C-alpha cells in the first residue's frame, strides 16, 4: 500500500471543513476564518475563492448527484447558509437561519428514485433546524430542539434526518419535516452516523460512550469504556464496521447481526488522541488521524491491520475520501489542505 502526496495548498486559517464534488473534480476547503477555496482535484489549481461567511465558516457540503453545475452549501457564524455555483464560483443564494452559528448541514442523499426528490439541505443553527432548497428557499422546522443541535445525519435512503441535542435524537421526516420519532438519550451528543443499510443510527457521546439504535425496531445498545468523549464516527460501506474516536485508539465495532454487544472491538492504536476517522466509500480502508499529526490507513479485518502511515507537521482536522476512493483529502490545523494518492 502506498500513500503519496498528490498536491497541497495553503489556506489563510485552520482548515475547518473539506468536501469533494460528487464527480470528484473539485475539492472545496473552508478556512475557519471564512473564505472557501475550490481546488481542481487533478493538480490543486485554485479555481475560485469564495468569500464564505463573515466571522468565520463552520461547515460545507456539495449537493448530491452529478447535476451541472455542482452546488456547494456553506454554513457560518453569521447564522446563514449560503449556496454557491461551484463551477463559476458565483454566490447563488443566502438562507438566514437566525442569530446562532450554523454549525451543521447535511444534504438529503438521493434515494432509490432520485427524480422524485428535490434537493434538500438540513441545516442547524443553535436550537433551530431549517430545510433549505437548492434555490435558497428555506423552511424552518415548526419546533426548536430543546437544546443546541449538535449533530445532523440523513438516513441513507433520505427518508428522515436525525438531529441530536443534549437529551436525545429526533428523527425528522424528509418530506413534510415533522418529527417522526424521538430517541431519548440523557447526555450530550457530539456525532451521529447511520450505517449505509439504514439499520443502525449511532451517536458519539459526551459521557463518554457510543449509543446504537435500530430505529425500526426500537432496539438499543450502549457501548462505554472510552477514555474521552466520542466526537468522530464512521461506518464502512458494508454496514458491518463502525469506527469511533474517543481515546488513543481508533475503536472498531463489529455491528453485524445483533450488533457489537458482547464483542471485543478492534483497537487500532495511535500515540495521541484520535481526531478523525473515515472509511472509504466503496472500499474497506479506514483512515484515522491523531493529535500528534499521524494519519494511518487500516484494513480492520486483517490480522495485521495497519497498511500505511503518514506524519503531518500539524494534526489533521478532517479526513475525506474522494468519491472513487483513490484520493484522501486531509485538512490541517496550520491551514494546509493536502491531497494524498492511495495506491496498491
Amino acid at each position: 500500500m502506498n500513500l503519496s502526496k498528490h498536491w497541497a495548498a495553503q489556506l489563510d486559517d485552520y482548515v475547518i471543513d473539506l468536501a469533494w464534488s460528487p464527480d470528484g473534480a473539485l475539492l472545496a476547503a473552508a478556512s475557519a476564518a471564512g473564505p472557501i477555496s475550490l481546488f481542481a482535484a487533478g493538480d490543486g489549481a485554485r479555481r475560485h475563492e469564495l468569500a464564505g461567511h463573515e466571522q468565520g465558516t463552520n461547515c460545507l457540503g456539495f449537493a448530491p448527484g452529478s447535476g451541472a453545475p455542482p452546488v456547494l452549501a456553506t454554513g457560518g457564524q453569521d447564522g446563514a447558509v449560503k449556496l454557491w455555483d461551484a463551477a463559476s464560483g458565483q454566490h447563488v443564494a443566502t438562507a438566514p437561519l437566525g442569530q446562532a452559528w450554523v454549525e451543521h448541514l447535511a444534504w438529503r442523499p438521493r434515494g432509490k428514485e432520485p427524480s422524485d426528490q428535490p434537493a434538500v439541505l438540513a441545516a442547524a443553527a443553535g436550537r433551530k433546524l431549517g430545510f433549505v432548497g437548492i434555490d435558497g428557499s428555506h423552511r424552518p422546522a415548526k419546533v426548536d430542539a430543546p437544546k443546541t443541535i449538535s449533530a445532523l445525519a440523513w438516513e441513507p435512503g433520505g427518508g428522515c434526518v436525525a438531529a441530536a441535542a443534549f437529551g436525545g435524537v429526533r428523527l425528522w421526516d424528509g418530506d413534510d419535516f415533522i418529527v417522526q420519532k424521538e430517541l431519548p438519550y440523557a447526555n450530550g451528543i457530539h456525532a451521529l452516523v447511520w450505517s449505509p443499510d439504514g439499520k443502525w443510527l449511532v451517536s458519539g457521546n459526551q459521557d463518554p460512550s457510543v449509543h446504537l439504535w435500530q430505529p425500526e425496531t426500537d432496539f438499543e445498545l450502549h457501548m462505554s469504556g472510552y477514555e474521552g468523549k466520542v466526537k468522530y464516527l464512521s461506518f464502512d460501506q458494508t454496514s458491518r464496521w463502525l469506527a469511533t474516536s474517543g481515546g488513543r485508539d481508533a475503536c472498531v465495532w463489529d455491528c453485524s447481526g445483533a450488533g457489537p454487544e458482547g464483542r471485543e472491538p478492534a483497537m487500532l492504536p495511535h500515540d495521541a488522541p484520535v481526531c478523525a476517522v473515515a472509511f472509504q466509500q466503496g472500499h474497506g480502508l479506514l483512515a484515522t488521524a491523531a493529535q500528534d499529526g499521524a494519519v494511518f490507513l487500516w484494513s480492520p479485518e486483517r490480522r495485521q491491520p495497519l497498511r500505511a502511515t503518514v506524519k503531518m507537521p500539524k494534526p489533521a482536522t478532517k479526513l475525506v475520501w474522494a468519491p472513487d476512493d483513490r484520493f484522501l483529502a486531509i485538512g490541517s490545523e496550520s491551514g494546509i489542505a493536502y491531497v494524498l494518492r492511495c495506491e496498491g
Partner: protein
Amino acid sequence: MTSSAIPVTVLTGFLGAGKTTLLNRILTEQHGRKLAVIENEYGEVGVDNQLVIAGEEELFEMNNGCICCSVRGDLIRILGRLLKRKDRLDGILIETTGLANPAPVAQTFFTDDEMRGAFRLDAIVTVADAKHLLQHLDLGDESVKQLAFADVILLNKADLAAPAELDALEARIRRINSVAKIHRSVNCAVALDQVLEVGGFNLSRATELDPKFLETEYPFEWAGAYTLPGGALEVAIGHDDEDGHAHEHSHDGHAHSHHHGNDNELDLVILPLKSLGESDLAAARDLAVEAFSGWESRHREGEAIVPGPTLHRLELKAGHGHFPLTLPGPGLYAVFEQCGEVPLHLQVGKEPVRPDWQQDYHAAHEHEDDVSSVGFHQPGDLDGNRLNTWISELLRTKGGDIYRMKGVLSVKGSNKRLVFQGVHMLFDAKFDREWGSDPRANTLVFIGKNLDRAKLTEAFKACLA
C-alpha cells in the same frame, strides 16, 4: 492541564454589579493580546479586534441531575470552535449570567478531556455590588454560591457604601469564603494582575493559602485592646449606660440571636499586651484560647478580676454586673470575651475607655448564611491512608455540599508537600516541592453548605499520624 493551555477567567456576579464594566476594562487594557470573550447576552461588550461571542447558557446535567456531574454544554461547543484557529488565543473570559451556578463552569474544565487539555481554568472572579450585596445574599443561593466559589471577589461600587458597611460586608464574605482575595473597587478599577493570572486552580499556588484567614473555632467572639492606666478600674456589663459608650462590636449590625450558654454568664480573659503588632496580638490570642479551655474562676457581682491567663466567668443579674479590675501597671491590655447580647465596658471611674483595636471572631455556631468556610492550620504529619479514606468518604457523602476545597498537607513518609484542590466531588492532588526548611504543617480549607465544623475538625484530627 498543560503549560501551553489557554488561561480561562470566569466572571460571575449579580446583574448590575459591574461584570460588563470589568470585562470592558480588561479588554481595553489588554489590547495587545488576543482574548476571546464569551458573554451571556448579545452586544454588551464591544472592543475592536476582540473576539466576542454571545451564547446561551446550556447546562448538561449528568446522571440523575447531580450538580457535581453537570457541565456547560455551550462552553464545550463554543470553546471547541475557538480552538479551531491557526493562531493560539492568549486568554478566554467567560461572563456568566447573574443567576448562574459557577460549579458546572468549573467542572467543564475538569471533566471534559478536550477542555482539560486545551484550557486552564485560572480563576473565578466574582463582582459584588457593595450597595446591594446584602439584599442579593438574602435573595437566595446563587449569589452566596458565587461568593463561595470565587478566587477573587471585587467589592465594587465601594464608593456607595460607608467604610463601616464595607468592613461588615467583608467580614460576612470572609465567613462564607475565607480564602478568596477581596478587593474594594469603584467602577471595577483594579490592577489587571488582581483578576488575571491569579492561579486560583493552580495546585502549587494553593500554597498561598493564608492561615490567618483559616480561623479555627475561637472560643471567644470578640477581642479589644485598650490603653489603660494602672490601678483600680471597673468592668461594667449591661445596657445601663445608654449614652452611647457601648463598645462597637455590632457584629455586622446583627444582634446575636443566641448566646452560647447561660444568658446570665459572661466569659472573659484579660491579658497584658506588648504591642498592637500582629505577632503580639496573635500570641495573646493563642494564650487566650488556652485560657478559655482551662478551668473558669467564677465571679459574683463585685468580686475583683485580675489580668492573666485565667478564664473569668462573670455571673450577671438580668444581664447586668459590675466587677472591679485591678491592674498592676499602666499599659496595653487585651480583653477576650465570649459575650452575649450584652455590651461590655471598661471604665475608669465612670468614664468608659474606648478600645485602640478590636476584632470579631466567628464562633462555630454563628452564621447568617448556611454557606461557610471551615479551615484548619495544624502542625504535624498526617497518616496517608487515613487521610485518603476520610477525603474519599467525605466527598462521596458530602461532595454536593462542598463547593471548593484547597489544601497543603504534610503526609508522613513523604518529604514533599501534598497540594490539592477540588470542586464538589472532583479532586486534584499532587506532591509538589520538598518542605525544606519550612515547618511541616497542614493547611486545609473547605467552603460549602451546612459544613459541620466540629465534625470536620474531629475527622481531620483523627488523620494526624
